[in-house]
């Protein structure tokens, strides 16, 4: 979701993505390409239950792919971003940068 020109950048922020834990999940998964549940949990300092709840929201929104399997006897869950997830993260970062720019310019829209 990108704010239309002239709209305040806050209007371009997607609530599903902007939540700080989910934004962290998207960022780690984007950089890692594929990431295992345990790595995410440690990197973000979350409990397994909390992380699962946020992953369910992102999966329902079609932003992450969840792949469950076994390595030996050990169950492992791997995550990757869908194309929509990559776009959503990129849009979020763009909106945040626009917000910073707007704050620094004292409230005027970039380019206006």
């Amino acid at each position, binding site marked *: 979701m990108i704010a239309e020109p002239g709209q305040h950048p806050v209007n371009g922020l997607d609530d599903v993505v902007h939540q*700080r*834990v989910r*934004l*962290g999940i998207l*960022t*780690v998964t984007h*950089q*890692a*390409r*594929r*990431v*295992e*549940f*345990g*790595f*995410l949990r*440690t*990197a*973000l*300092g*979350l409990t397994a239950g909390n992380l699962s709840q946020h992953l369910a929201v992102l999966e329902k929104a079609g932003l992450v792919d969840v792949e469950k399997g076994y*390595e030996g006897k050990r169950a*492992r869950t791997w995550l*990757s971003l869908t194309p929509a997830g990559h776009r959503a993260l990129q849009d979020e*970062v763009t909106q*945040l*940068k626009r*917000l*910073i720019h707007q*704050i620094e310019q004292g409230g005027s829209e970039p380019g206006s």
Partner: protein
Amino acid sequence: MTDATVPSSGTPREVLAGLGELTRQVRAAQRGAWFPLLLFGLLTLGGILVSRLTTSIRTVTTCPPAPGSADVPTSCTVVTQGSPLYWTLGLGLAYAAIAVFYVRRSRNRGVGTPVRPYILAGTALAALAAATAFWSLRQGVLEPGAPFDLWGLRLDPAAGTTAFLERLIGNAAAIGLPLLVLSWVERSRALLLLAVVYLAVELVPLSTGWAGSLGAPPWSAVPRLGVPGLLLLLGALGFGLAELSRQRKAS
């Protein structure tokens, strides 16, 4: 990795800073440059021993004419040193081992690896170096001053560009150029610096002074291979220690 680094819910600048910190943590977990540097350092130093063992000085009676003269000498000395088979097998096995190392590490750490472009570049350049070495072998003993055939290009063997081209598609380039790719995928400035220094040592004419000549004693490969080999091993040591230090801080 003990820091709870969920992005702050503060200002947009703080949120972006938090995302940047998360990205750095993931990159640190993905890095493993010490392993390829260690393998290639050992391979290069092993080349000294292979050079010593394969040095052969033979006197033959079928000789090319002497330069600037139509006279054909009755006998001449042919010196051969080094084994293209050693480098072909060594580079191939090294890149296979590096791929396995990164994939296993990725599974163990639970974070994907971006190393594929590095392995592809390395394998392609190693194949090119091997093909060039075997192409050169087919030409046999060259007449002194005769043009050197490099993939159909008739090159002056005395020209600096010929020496540079030979090195550019040689074994050292099959190690050094992919290291540039690795420094890019691992976003490591230190590795970029090391790769540039290594390539300068191997490709720039500066290194011709270390090359030794084929008529030199059998250990002539020591400076030619010893300097870049030690550089790679020192790099492996540095990156290995840096990784250990990061792991200690995180635990």
